[in-house]
């Protein structure tokens, strides 16, 4: 053993505790790295994963609630149209008939006598379409006035087709007008089918 080594050995009480102290610190850090750091990392990963899951659920829930809101708004609008504008045939038919004749008279059309009605059930929906076909006589201006009155009418009457022929009496026209309206079918039972 040379001199220096002998001196270090003889004075080991000076440096050995410090060395042990350092080694203990290193061991503690190594233990942290091996055990706790991994655990914390796993926990952070689990938390991030759950947050992602939560965000996905929130997005899906918001979409679904928006869809439900839209569906309810659409349903409400449809029901309002049924109640406020269309109504049942028993409640509205005579009013429609009277209104068509009144508008024709108001516009100056004459000869509104034979009115044909055709019913057509709208398949799968609680609605029936009634076509109203009639002939009349009048001038071009009277025809325009009738169309204008029909457009301004609050009733749900649609003008589907107009046919005109020269009546040969000083610019008089023979008109054939096809109108249609919709009625709500009471107690409608939809055919069995899958829901959306």
């Amino acid at each position, binding site marked *: 053993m040379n001199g220096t080594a002998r001196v270090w050995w003889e004075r080991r009480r000076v440096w050995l505790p410090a060395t042990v102290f350092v080694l*203990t610190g290193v061991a503690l850090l190594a233990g942290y790295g091996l055990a706790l750091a991994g655990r914390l990392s796993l926990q952070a990963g689990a938390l991030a994963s759950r947050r992602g899951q939560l965000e996905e659920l929130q997005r899906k829930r918001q979409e679904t609630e928006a869809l439900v809101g839209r569906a309810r708004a659409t349903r409400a609008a449809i029901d309002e149209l049924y109640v406020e504008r269309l109504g049942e045939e028993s409640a509205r038919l005579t009013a429609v008939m009277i209104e068509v004749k009144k508008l024709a008279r108001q516009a100056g059309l004459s000869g509104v006598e034979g009115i044909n009605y055709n019913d057509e059930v709208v398949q799968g929906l609680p609605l029936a379409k009634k076509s109203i076909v009639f002939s009349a006589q009048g001038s071009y201006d009277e025809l325009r006035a009738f169309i204008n009155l029909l457009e301004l009418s609050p009733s749900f009457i649609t003008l589907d087709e107009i046919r005109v*022929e020269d009546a040969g009496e000083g610019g008089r026209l023979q008109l054939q007008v096809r109108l249609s309206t919709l009625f709500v079918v009471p107690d409608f039972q939809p055919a069995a089918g899958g829901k959306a």
Partner: protein
Amino acid sequence: MIGAAANLASRPFANTRPLRRVALALWVVGAVLMGVAGYLYWRSLFGIEGGRAQIADVDRSIAAERRRLDAAEAALAGMDLRRQNAEATYLDARVRERAFPWSALFEHLAQVLPRKVRLVSLAPQSGDPRAGTRSRRPASVASAGRVYLQMTGAAANDEALTDLLDRLFANRWFERPTLPTEHRDPNGTIGFVLGVSYLPGGPRAAAAAPTMAPVERATPKASLLTETPSSESRSPGGAR
């Protein structure tokens, strides 16, 4: 005798200063390491606990979201969306027909009809038969910003008929006129059947008008029609 120097130390001299310096450095390094380790252990102890609490919070939120999602899905499942979509589509088309601007059409036709041509019948059609989409339903006017019109009429001569076609081509309210049939009547006039696309809102509105997405195309989620029947008030041409 001075030649041999006397050595009074009991032991030979040894320089212990480096040893002490190393020991001091080791104590300092050890203290730093212990400090860092202590900080990390302390932080991880509270970090793990805090993490657990956060995970528990998020789990509670997930459970609450699931309950709300289930409730919304149950509400959605309780609605017959397929039928409602069919109703909305049908009614929307009928409302658009109701809003068809007949008066505006007559004004626009008056701009293009030559004096020697008269129309006999006029009927809007749903879809353009030239595109193979015609249906027996009348027009769903504003769904695509244009409506196909079928007209029959009579022209006094060939010039009047070609004049009508030229005017239709030139007029901004009409598009792609076609003359599938013409025949000379016994009285010398030329009877014709004419098809033309009418643009109730003008060409710009026709270009911008969205086409209603068919229900069949949509996924169940996206199949709800947002357009409600109250769209009548937005009738093209403001006829109503």
